[in-house]
């Protein structure tokens, strides 16, 4: 791919088509990544011309679904950044464990690996029975995969290592049954997970939570959209609740910054509620 299959003007045309025809708003997305994803799909599907590619997205609902699935990044793993999950296990969730009921929002959950990771920790802390994890994504196709709770066997060695580094002490393999090339995770783990579509760009707050996780989603948004999404999280988070972002993401410089206090050394902020605390 020496020259991109798709140029900047064509990216803008597609973005405007998606909004007009389907109500999917990608106008606030960072362009470099989006352009790479679209060019990749264009080459992968061997489109004959841009006009044909554009027409197909515009008029073919099934292809539109594929398009959205392919241009959004759905790479994730279980217990990614083990130190982060160790902090959830050792600090955040025990604190929330004193509440009668724990509501967690995992925004941009993709194929669900993090949702099952959190469920495992909650189970080990004896908190799963009084918890509810809302795992949302804009993309229905990944949510279907997430609900199956089946991940590639080939990943299990890595996930098991991550799990141990995150403070897990059980035999990780007891959480799934091997089924040829897939590991099927225990039904119990997903009983407290609700998978549902939610678009951070256009959908509103739908509940109040004590913990919101949204890791490596904001990086795909331009600054203004990032700030709007942080406002949405702020509206959806109880006082003294926690907000967890990705390694390279921050609430600094946003409109909500002065109501949040960072856990030193971690990308986790606590809503302290008052200005200038």
């Amino acid at each position, binding site marked *: 791919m020496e020259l991109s299959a798709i140029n900047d003007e064509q990216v803008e045309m597609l973005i405007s088509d998606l909004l007009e025809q389907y109500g999917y708003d990608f106008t606030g997305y960072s362009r470099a990544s989006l352009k*790479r994803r679209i060019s990749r799909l264009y080459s992968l599907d061997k489109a004959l011309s841009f006009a044909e590619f554009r027409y197909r997205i515009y008029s073919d609902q099934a292809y539109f679904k594929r398009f959205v699935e392919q241009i959004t990044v759905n790479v994730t793993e279980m217990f990614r950044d083990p130190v982060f999950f160790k902090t959830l296990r050792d600090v955040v969730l025990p604190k929330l464990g004193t509440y009668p009921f724990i509501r967690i929002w995992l925004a941009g959950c993709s194929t669900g690996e993090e949702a099952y990771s959190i469920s495992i920790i909650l189970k080990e802390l004896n908190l799963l029975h009084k918890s509810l994890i809302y795992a949302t994504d804009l993309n229905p196709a990944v949510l279907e995969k997430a609900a199956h709770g089946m991940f590639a066997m080939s990943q299990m060695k890595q996930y098991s290592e991550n799990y141990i580094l995150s403070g897990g002490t059980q035999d990780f393999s007891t959480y799934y049954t091997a089924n040829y090339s897939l590991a099927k995770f225990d039904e119990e783990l997903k009983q407290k997970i609700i998978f549902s579509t939610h678009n951070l760009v256009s959908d509103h707050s739908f509940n109040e939570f004590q913990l919101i996780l949204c890791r490596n989603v904001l*990086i795909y948004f331009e600054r203004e959209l990032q700030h709007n999404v942080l406002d949405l999280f702020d509206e959806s988070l109880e006082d003294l609740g926690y907000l967890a972002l990705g390694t390279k993401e921050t609430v600094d410089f946003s409109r909500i910054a002065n109501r949040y206090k960072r856990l030193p050394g971690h990308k986790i902020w606590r809503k302290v509620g008052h200005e200038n605390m």
Partner: protein
Amino acid sequence: MKTCEAFIIGGSAGSLEVLLRVLSEVRSDLSFPIIIVVHRKHGADSLLPNLLASRTSLIVKEVDEKEKINAGTVYVAPSDYHLLIEQDRTFSLDYSEKINYSRPAIDATFQTAAEVYKKKLVCLLLSGSNADGVNGLKSVKAWGGQAVIQDPASAQVAYMPAQAKLHVEIDRILGIEDIAEFINLLSNQSYHE
């Protein structure tokens, strides 16, 4: 005549010593940014920028997402993200699939930078053991920028620059001792192709 607006260095196995030497010899009033993308182990993010900073008086920092790209600054790609360049000369990060078994992938940075800086981009590929960066250099050439490699004969691991030499029309092949001077001469002046 054209000026250099960004200098990007990609490296893998065997590139650290070269980077340390080059940075110690690069002038401290560079008129463009140096952007470094090296394959490294996930974690311990501040170690590499700190090590590089110890060799130069230029500001060395790990990239923050959406950060504006400034001249006279050395930027280091964070581990485990692809580093992309936006048209408005800011950085963005991407956690999509590994490319050439690598994240960050040198190709991703070279390719997005090529479309932004076009003729005002110079990309240098150092020592390494896989072919990451080769497709990126092709893009750099296609958009009119300059493709430069470390002389494979001087590289600890010759494969990466050798692959580039094989597949890309390379503008300059530099020995380790000539890299800093090459960069210094690009600074603050127009140069002939």
